[in-house]
C-alpha cells in the first residue's frame, strides 16, 4: 500500500493544484491575491527530475490551468521556463535545499510567470488601442503573489521535495 501511495504521489499532488486554484483559501491571501500554487509543485518536481521532463510537465500544468481559467492569456510559457530553470538548478546541485533557497527560487519563478502573464494583457490592450488600462492592478497582483509564494514555499516545497525524493529512491 505504502509503495502504491509513493508511486502515485506526484500525480495525486498534481491533481490538487486545480482544486487549490478553485478553492483559493482566503486566509492565504494578501491584498486579495493568492500565492501562485503551481510553483509549489513544479519546483520540487523539477529539482528531482531535471529540465527536459520539467518543460513537458510545465506545458501540461499550464495547459490544465489555462483550460480551467478559460482566459484569453496563457500560463504555459511561464511554467515551461520555470520548469526548465528549476530543473537546471537541480541538475547543477546549486540548491542545498535550505528554506531560504526554496523561498527565493519560488519567488523568482512566480515573478517570471506573473510578468509573462501581465505582458500578454498589456500587449493585447495595446493591440486593441485601448487607453483605459492601469499598471497598478497588475503590479499589485505580481507583488502580492511573489511575496506570498516566497513566504509559503519553504514549507510546501520542502515537504513535497521530501515526498517526491522518497519516491525516486524507491524506484531505484
Amino acid at each position, binding site marked *: 500500500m505504502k509503495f502504491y501511495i509513493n508511486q502515485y504521489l506526484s500525480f495525486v499532488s498534481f491533481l490538487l493544484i486545480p482544486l487549490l*486554484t478553485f*478553492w483559493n483559501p482566503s486566509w492565504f491571501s494578501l491584498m486579495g491575491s493568492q500565492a501562485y500554487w503551481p510553483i509549489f509543485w513544479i519546483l520540487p518536481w523539477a529539482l528531482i527530475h531535471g529540465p527536459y521532463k520539467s518543460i513537458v510537465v510545465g506545458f501540461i500544468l499550464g495547459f490544465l490551468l489555462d*483550460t480551467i481559467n*478559460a482566459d484569453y492569456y496563457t500560463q504555459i510559457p511561464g511554467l515551461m521556463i520555470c520548469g526548465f530553470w528549476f530543473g537546471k538548478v537541480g541538475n547543477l546541485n546549486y540548491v542545498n535545499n535550505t528554506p531560504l533557497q526554496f523561498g527565493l527560487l519560488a519567488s523568482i519563478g512566480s515573478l517570471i510567470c506573473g510578468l509573462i502573464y501581465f505582458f500578454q*494583457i498589456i500587449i493585447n490592450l495595446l493591440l486593441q488601442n485601448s487607453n483605459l488600462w*492601469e499598471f*497598478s*492592478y497588475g503590479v499589485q*497582483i505580481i507583488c*502580492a503573489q511573489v511575496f506570498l509564494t516566497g513566504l509559503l514555499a519553504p514549507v510546501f516545497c520542502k515537504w513535497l521535495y521530501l515526498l517526491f525524493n522518497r519516491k525516486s529512491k524507491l524506484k531505484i
Partner: protein
Amino acid sequence: MVKFRRFSTSRWWNKRQTWIVILSFLILLFLRLSKTFIFWDIYYFITKPFWPGEYQQEILRKSINQELNIKLNQLERDNLRLRKLLDIQNFSEVNKLNSSVISRDTGSWWKKILLNKGSQNGVRPGDPVIGPGGLIGIVENISNLTSSVQLLTSPNSKVGVWSQKANLHGLLIGMGTKTPQLIFYSKNDNIQEGDYILSSPASTILPPNIPIGIIQSIDNESKPYTIATVQLTANPEAIDWVQIFRMGF
C-alpha cells in the same frame, strides 16, 4: 519462436510508451474540449458539505428587499417609457434562482466566482448574476452542476449602463481594480459624483434598472469623452449567496 517474439514486440502498437503518449494526448484533448467541467463537478461534490448556511440566505433576502424599494422609486419616475421595454423583456420573479458561491477568485488575474447551479437548473451563459446591492457579473461558462461568473471588475467585462439622473447611456469597462471605468461617449455636465448607475433599459442582455454602482470621480477634461470611476454597490468578496436571472427560461 524467439524471432517471432522479437518481431511482435518491435511493432509500435506493442509498445507501452506509445499508448501512454496517445492516452495522454486524448486526455489533454478531452480536457480542452470539455473546458475541465469534470473538475468543476468534482469540486462541487468535494465542497458541498462546506457551503454557506440558511441564515446567510436570510440576510440576502433582507438586502434584496431594500434593493427592490430603491428600484421601485426609480421605476415610478419613468414608468411610461419602461413599460414598453418591459413588455419586450417580459421579465418576472419566476426567472430568479438562488445560488451559493462555492469558489471565489476576486483578487488575482481572473475575476471570477463559481456558483453551485449549472445547466441542470436552467442556467445559461450570458445570464446576469445579482448580489446584495446590485449586479455583480454575467455567467460566462456552465457545467452540468456549476457555473462560472465573470465579475464586472474583470478586464474582459463590458456592460451597457445608464445614468438615470443625466439620462445618459454609457459603457462600463472592468479594469482589474475594484473600481471599473465608465465611458459616456458624449460630454455632459449633468453627470455628478454620487449619481447612481443602473443597467441600461436599452440593453437586450441585462434586465433594465438593476443597480450597479455610484459614480466616484469624473474626468471631463483629458479625453474627448467623459470617463467616470464607479464604485460598485455589490461586493463579490463578501457575499456567499447570489441570484441568477435566467433570461431565456
